[in-house]
């Protein structure tokens, strides 16, 4: 049986197939995966049907179709999710979708927002190429105990 393009390792018919067929997605991640699989299959109906109400008015179907046709999808990586549980009405999914355009490998990195509308998860919008949290480096004082655990002052030990 054909593997699901979303990369779950399951067969398409046990994974994204039913959701694309109209079954409710249990989580934002499941919906995200099914939308990726639908893009791979060129099934733009599923993309359009799983948009939040305000997106439906601004969605350009022909442009999405043209984009889907012009790229070759490679794989999908789910980097993380937040909320989107049974008791939540919103949720986010961070993903990287790799694709080839004109032979060049590219990546679409996005944090997507989802909202429950009449019980069903729907795609609202996303932030592309989100910045990670800034790296914080703790500075060790010269006279503080050395973090290596020697008991000496930092300036007399590793900081010398």
């Amino acid at each position, binding site marked *: 049986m054909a593997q699901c393009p979303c990369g779950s390792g399951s067969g398409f018919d046990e994974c994204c197939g039913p959701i694309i067929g109209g079954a409710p997605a249990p989580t934002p991640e499941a919906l995200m995966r099914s939308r990726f699989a639908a893009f791979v299959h060129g099934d733009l109906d599923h993309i359009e049907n799983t948009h939040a109400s305000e997106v439906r008015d601004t969605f*350009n179907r022909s442009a999405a*179709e043209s984009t889907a046709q012009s790229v070759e999808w490679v794989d999908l990586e789910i980097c993380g999710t937040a909320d989107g549980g049974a008791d939540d009405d919103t949720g986010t999914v961070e993903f990287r979708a790799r694709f080839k355009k004109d032979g060049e490998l590219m990546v679409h990195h996005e944090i997507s927002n989802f909202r429950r509308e009449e019980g069903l998860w729907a795609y609202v919008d996303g932030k592309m190429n989100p910045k990670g949290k800034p790296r914080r480096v703790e500075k060790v004082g010269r006279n503080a105990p050395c973090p290596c655990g020697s008991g000496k002052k930092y300036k007399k030990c590793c900081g010398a």
Partner: protein
Amino acid sequence: MERRFSCTACGKCCHGMLPLTIDDALAHADKFPLVVMWTPVRQGGRSFGVTAELGVTIQLKKRRLAAVQIAPTAYIPPSLPCPELAEDGLCAIHARKPQRCRTMPFSAYRDEKDHDDLMIPRSGWECDTSDQAPVVYRDKRILDRNDFDVERTQLLRDAAILKPYAEWLLDAVPSLRPELHKAALKPVGGRVPVAFSTLIPRLPKVDIYAFARKQVPIMKAFAERTADDPGLVDFHQWYVDSHAEWEKVASGRP
């Protein structure tokens, strides 16, 4: 302070780039080679406020800001005439011409009080600013402001589409921000042309295939028109690349 002005239909201002409203760009997609032009204006620069209101602001170095005008634009080299400027020197599409042309010599991209220089003919232009010409601008106010107001209303409506488009594209294309920084540092004429195809997904009613079929021949025509001029190599390359891109889109569906 009064400014007198009367158009003599010399056709000199019908050359070069022409910013357009979204509707004008779509209506003339078979006539103009279209881009989305991003033009930074530094803080303290001309009409910074209105540019920020209609477009976006980006952070420059040393806590300075630049406002970026984002305008669908007929991408025509300054030395070339508008393709609709007829042999007789008049506009071939006068009845349907873009609002940008109608509002001349005023511009809704500018503050109303910032118009003095627009009524001074540029070198070679034949605008009549003599005592015979009527007063059109007095004490920083436009006297017949109908077209100015129409254009400003359209620009404000477009801004509702162009602002979120700009924020999205700045995230989606990380190289755009440094290019805008570079353009903002140029003393004059700094701007970044962006393919019009980036805007189409934001215009729900536009069929991208039909749009591509309109742009293919006009990009080809401008590529040919600029092929032999060494001063226009950048323009020429743009038309060649755009032609290939739209050709590819157009071939996606018959």
